[in-house]
């Protein structure tokens, strides 16, 4: 618990330092953004404007060898701008929870049944909050929340302390979402077969490239690092995806993920998922 306290205080201090540098940075105009009316520039931000909402819905399909379509899950996330600085989200997808695409198989509304890989129908949920630290060409937000990693027994709850950043210039954007997950419940295993809830560090890094006005290509790599048995359990997933912006409100996309392309396990390219998603802004 002492470690937990230290980490929480460190995170709060880090957020405070970042917030102290909260100067508004007018981003350079980029080819990917519409020119601002009146000749102004446009700023990226990682929170919603006050009163706006975004609904993300993902269909996650396991495409692993010998386990194709087992399971299939649907993970809706909804984000709401409480103020121009603070956005809260009710999140079911691993994408929304951690920033990693396609790594959570069987999350949330798991539709294919327990015989087809679902631990339970409603397996994960998280309450997430983002507080804007900086907007502009380099946008930052503090990100944290409570993640229910498993609603079924044993109940697993983690505290998320992180940040999310986005840099963009012209057609290129780079995003990173480092976060520390602190196991709040089920920190110790009941028996040898039990998998305990562990503290972990996740650092997804994504590169996005606007190939056309409505088409964006994305590639993501990152590090999933349990703080115990790190050498045996770390994962480096790789995702490749494409998005199509239907209109100003709707964006659709799909991503193919090697969940453990490199890591402590030996699955290699065998563990694969497909994520089909849509994002609708209200």
């Amino acid at each position: 618990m002492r470690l937990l306290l230290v980490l929480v205080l460190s995170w709060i201090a880090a957020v405070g330092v970042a917030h102290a540098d909260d100067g508004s940075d007018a981003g350079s105009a980029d080819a990917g953004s519409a020119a601002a009316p009146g000749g102004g520039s446009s700023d990226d931000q990682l929170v919603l404007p006050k009163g706006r909402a975004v609904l993300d819905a993902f269909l996650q399909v396991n495409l692993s060898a010998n386990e194709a379509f087992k399971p299939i899950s649907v993970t809706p996330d909804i984000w709401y701008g409480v103020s121009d600085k603070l956005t809260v989200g009710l999140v079911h997808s691993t994408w929304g929870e951690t920033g990693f695409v396609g790594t959570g198989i069987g999350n949330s509304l798991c539709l294919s049944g327990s015989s087809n890989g679902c631990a339970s129908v409603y397996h994960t949920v998280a309450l997430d909050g983002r507080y804007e630290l900086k907007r502009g060409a380099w946008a930052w937000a503090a990100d944290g929340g409570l993640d229910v990693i498993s609603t079924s027994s044993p109940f697993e709850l983690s505290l998320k302390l992180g940040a999310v950043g986005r840099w963009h210039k012209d057609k290129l954007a780079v995003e990173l979402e480092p976060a520390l997950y602190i196991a709040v419940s089920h920190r110790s295993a009941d028996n040898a077969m039990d998998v305990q809830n562990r503290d972990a560090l996740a650092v997804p890094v994504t590169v996005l490239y606007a190939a056309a006005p409505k088409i964006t290509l994305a590639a993501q790599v990152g590090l999933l690092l349990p703080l115990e048995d790190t050498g045996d359990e770390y994962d480096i997933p790789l995702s490749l995806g494409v998005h199509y912006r239907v209109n100003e409100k709707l964006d659709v996309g799909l991503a193919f993920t090697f969940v453990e392309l490199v890591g402590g396990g030996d699955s290699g390219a065998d563990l694969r998922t497909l994520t089909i998603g849509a994002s609708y802004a209200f």
Partner: protein
Amino acid sequence: MRSKIILVAALGGLTTLASCTKTDLAAPCHPVTSWSMPAFRCSVAAPPPVVAKPEPPPEPPPPEPPKKATLTQDKIEVGEIVEFETGSAKLKPESTSILDEVAKILTEHADVKKVQIEGYTDSQGSKSSNKTLSQHRAETVKKYLVDKGISDKRLTTKGFGQDNPVADNGTDDGRHQNRRVEFKILERDAAQ
């Protein structure tokens, strides 16, 4: 059972959040494709153009001071008394502006061929001394005008002393009005 309770709570939350949203698409913000959702891009209003402050309208020219001297058919009227030192023919400095205007009129009106400068006094003192004083005062005025470029041939002088008073010599104000200089046009070129 626990997962069902959480599911119901989550769906309730979703419904509540969705019902709270505003669909103000006119706002200058739009979502951008991101893998760290949600991300928006918002317009930053350009600072208002610097509009040059309109030049204030030029101040109207100050109203012309009332003329101290005007030309009539047979005389040059002066609006103020030409003042001299008491008992002296020495012109007071504040009266020079009156004579400057008289000089200006004479310069601009060459048709005024001859002007008689007439000096008057009040009734205090002897008649003869007043006459002498008024003559001297008229000559002082003539000299001033000549110095201003008026030909002395156009100017004559005459001292009337206390004759022809225009006001009551029994009062200070009346006596002040009687101590005066008049400019009588003796000859004027009608052709001009």
